[in-house]
């Protein structure tokens, strides 16, 4: 293994291509840490934002006017402001007030990033799920009701499974975007991939090498995710239903 890592020092000496993340143990640890953080961040945000989307779309159909209003304003707020501004707002704005008696912040920057990005993508997900729900024929819902399903049961067993299949392509789009957007948590010092890369290239002035590494890593990550989602999409296909 060491010979493999050392070969990159040789690469640097002979060609000037400086990949410190292979031959410098400190940079290697940092970069792997950054990669893992990005994956964790992306995974947590995907799960949380889908949960928000499903719950939000259900609440949107609520009989209570107040609930519908709250969901409406949530969507407006998060969809109409840039995610970077939201992160700054949470971390520096809200975070300044959420403290223990000793003045220690209650919420760490990673948590703010997960919350902020999930709320942001979640707002889009609510609308995406709504589009799916609205595509389920009214007759189907009425049929469920006549079988004695409650509103929640009908949503859970009839509407959502059908809606999910219809909105999966749009959902994929949004989630791919979410994976890429995790890189902005760089601004609030979350040690994800872009953050550690910037630290590394300012130490070793290997900007173009690290830019390429970053690009490859993101293409790989997103590619893997898209592949998995497509497989899932195909597996869930109901013959004769939807496009």
């Amino acid at each position, binding site marked *: 293994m060491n010979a493999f890592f050392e070969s990159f020092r040789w690469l640097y000496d002979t060609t000037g291509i400086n990949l410190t993340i292979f031959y410098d143990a*400190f940079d290697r640890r940092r970069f792997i840490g950054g990669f893992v953080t990005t994956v964790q961040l992306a995974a947590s945000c995907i799960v949380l934002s889908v949960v928000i989307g499903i719950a939000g779309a259900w609440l949107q159909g609520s009989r209570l006017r107040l609930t519908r209003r709250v969901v409406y304003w949530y969507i407006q707020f998060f969809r109409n402001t840039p995610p970077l501004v939201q992160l700054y707002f949470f*971390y*520096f704005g809200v*975070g*300044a007030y959420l*403290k223990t008696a000793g*003045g*220690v*912040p209650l919420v760490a*920057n990673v948590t703010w990033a997960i919350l902020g990005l999930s709320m942001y993508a979640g707002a889009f997900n609510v609308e995406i799920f709504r589009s799916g729900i609205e595509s389920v024929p009214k007759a189907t819902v009425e049929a469920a009701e006549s079988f004695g399903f409650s509103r929640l049961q009908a949503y859970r067993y009839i509407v959502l499974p059908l809606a999910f299949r219809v909105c999966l392509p749009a959902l994929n789009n949004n989630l791919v975007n979410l994976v890429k957007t995790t890189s902005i948590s760089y*601004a609030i*010092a979350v*040690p994800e991939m872009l*953050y550690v890369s*910037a*630290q590394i290239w*300012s*130490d070793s002035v290997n900007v173009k090498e690290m830019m390429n590494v970053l690009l490859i890593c993101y293409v790989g990550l997103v590619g893997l995710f898209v592949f998995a989602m497509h497989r899932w999409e195909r597996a869930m296909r109901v013959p004769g239903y939807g496009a």
Partner: protein
Amino acid sequence: MPTLRNLAAAAAIVAIVLPSFPAFAQDALEQIKKRGTLIVGVKADYKPYGFRDPAGKIIGIEPDLAQDVATKLGVKLELVPVVSSNRMQFLEQGKIDLMIATMNDKPDRRKVVYIVEPSYYASSVNVLAPKSAKLREWTELKGKKVCMIQGAWYNKQLQQDYGMEDVAFKGTSEAFTALKGNNCVAFAYDDTLILASLLEPEWKDYEMPLKSVLEDPWGLAVKLGEEKFYKVMSDLIVDWHRTGRIVELEKKYGMGNTSYALQMNAKYKK
């Protein structure tokens, strides 16, 4: 008729001869004395090293040093405000005779201007931390969150030496805000800037508690090839260190003393 090749040859000759021209011209010292003024490039936006008083006059530690030079040469002083991106060019083009402008001494800069030794000043790395944290040793920072600036050259070194967890931001204002919000236990930065910040009332509950490390010298510079002027400046810098002039100026502008100023004073006093 001049062909392209002839033109190129002529251009090459001009390019070779031109830079050596100043060698035949008067040296800077003679020029300054003839003119009766010494023109020095200083910062005008970097408190307390060079900034403007309410009347718009440039004052600060470096303008005071420039005045010392003018006094020694027996001429009047003219200050020209410079910024980091043009200070070396001003000196090269002869717009200023001398540059004292908070410039770090770096090998690639030595190729462009003549940086005078010994260094008149140096910044080191220290931390700004709340007094209540009672920090005394760098080793206490192991595993703790420390705010930094993205891209600062000492980030990696500090992490390797002391094992702190970095929380690095784009600019100083974010780092300062994060420190105030206790998102980090300390903010690692140049001691010169920490000392300057501590002049502000908003930082009265904070201190610079550690021993400064990773010294980074600043260089004042004359034009390349100005041997006589270089010698004068070199002697004067030794004089500043011997008499404690820099320590005194730091006090005059209300900031704490940098470890470099004290150290050099102790070294040359003997």
